[in-house]
């Protein structure tokens, strides 16, 4: 929690610089909010330290499986970046089965079926019926 509070304090302080440069009433609420965030993050640290001093129970980890969480977050970021570079349909067709496989789905039948249903479904609903355009990929 101390790390989180520290991050809130630093981010608020960083945004406070441009907030103070705003004219008159335009800066009223932004400055108030950022100062409040800085103050609250300090209070958060104080409360957390007090709690830690009074509590002898072992600290419970926030994540059950940190490696899987990092993997999941990475896969989301990788998906978006790849869509930007290689295009939406190609990335989706690879992303759905690969992610499902990496996170524990080992049935080839399920992987193939879900891939075909998802890509075809999106194409029919969004590209054909709703005429939506998706990124084609910047490298092509």
């Amino acid at each position, binding site marked *: 929690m101390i790390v989180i509070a520290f991050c809130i304090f630093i981010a608020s302080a960083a945004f406070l610089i441009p907030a103070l440069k*705003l004219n008159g009433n335009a800066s009223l609420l932004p400055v108030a909010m*950022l100062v409040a*965030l800085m103050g609250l993050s300090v209070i958060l640290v104080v409360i957390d330290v007090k709690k830690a001093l009074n509590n002898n129970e072992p600290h419970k980890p926030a994540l059950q499986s940190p490696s899987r969480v990092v993997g999941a*977050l990475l896969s989301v970021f990788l*998906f*978006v970046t790849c869509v930007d570079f290689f295009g939406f349909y190609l990335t989706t067709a690879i992303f*759905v089965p690969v992610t499902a496989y990496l996170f524990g789905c080992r049935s080839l039948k*399920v992987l193939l079926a*879900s891939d075909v249903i*998802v890509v075809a479904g999106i194409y029919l609903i969004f590209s054909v019926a709703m005429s939506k355009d998706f990124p084609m990929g910047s490298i092509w």
Partner: protein
Amino acid sequence: MYMDLISALPSVLSFDNFFAIVIGVLSGIAVGAMPGLSATMAISVLVPFTFGLDPLVALGLMAGIYNGAMYGGAIPAVLLRIPGTPAAVATSFDGYPMAQSGRGGFALQVAVVSSAIGGIASALALMLLAPPLAKVTLLFGPAEVFWIAVFGLCSIIFLLGESPIKGLISACFGIFVSMVGADPITSEDRFTFGQLELLDGINMVILLVGLYAMPPVIDLLEQPLDTKEAGKALKTESLLRSFPRMFHFWKTWLRSSLIGIWIGILPGAGGSMAAFMSYNEARRASSNPDEWGKGEPEGVAASETANNADTASALIPALTLGIPGTAVAAVMLGGLLVHGLQPGPMLFRDNPDIVFGFMWQFLFGAILLIFLGGSLATNSFAHLLKLPRPVLGAIIIVLMFIGVYSINGRMFDVYLMLGFGLIGYVMDKFKFPLPPVVLGLILGGFAEENLRLTLLIGQGQWSSLFANTTSLVLVAMTIAVVVGPMIKRRVVKARKSES
């Protein structure tokens, strides 16, 4: 205003609207049936897809999802003792023992009928109570509107979640996000850092999808789930034949509906609190309380009636004052904003056909639950539990992308959503409440505009914020909401130390 309610009925009965409610209820049951997915997440992912739709059709989808998901949560609660939604925890107390003794089909039938009854009662409460409240709030000026926004924020911060400090941080973050873009009065750029994409501010949908869809997706990929028991076929008989066996629950249905409606109206409380309170009250009133927890169908009825009775009633303060009672109501407010409908008293004056149509949609959604959530459908939805969670997670990620990209056709919005998603995940893990962020974004701009308007009218005098009785009453209510829980905590602490 009640005439407007009747005039809105024909448009709701059009094919498009009715079809939207049906689809909404079915998708809601499906979402609710999958542990880890909630109505809040489903509505946040759905909102961007409704851009091109008529506002009433879009709201019908949302009302259907909300109603359906509250019942859908009972399916895994009964079959696996894993509540599909937090509001279904109390349902598992008696639902699971019933399923273990081969009465899972009957438990789900009790759940669907009770959910429908709770939903109908809630929709009727919304229809009866919202119009007179809106009429009163129409008389408010900018100072009162500012105080309503402050009251709404304080209610959510201090009544929802364990830590008011964390609630305050969430709300300040939401308000700060609402400040990004051109200043509403002077048009000065605020925190855009030269990005043209930020000039119009941050779209509500981007924040909603990031905050509410990312944490459950990561959870889906993080934890495996044992769903072997979900494959077992349920023994069910026709609802018409089993309904007479539920008649004697009428007192529980009535009591739980009233509890659910009351909890729904209170800002900060939610479906799970309604279900627990109603379960306890029904058990207290029962002639055989020892049987509860061992497979008493009345326990399922109490919990399911209350958690559905909380749905439409949570929209009473949301639609009339712009203060949502629950997280789903906050997301629904976002859905209204996406369609250019500002929640609050003006909504009743400017768009009566839509706001009253929305109320009818809640009523029809609740009625449809009985027809769409019957034995055959429930059996099919139970099979959804077998869908591998990693596949589901990957599909939701793709849907999140499509939803956010479709708003403006820009990758910038998708990267922004990822940023909010990461913040949302961290906040979720460290127990920072998410509804105050959404409410801060909804009410932040609104509060700022009315505050500055009041100061302009009052020639810069801060006393103009306290110039009339209504403002003072609202200030007193705000103080009560802030101080009340603190006093309560102290009293409880003092009593504990005495004993």
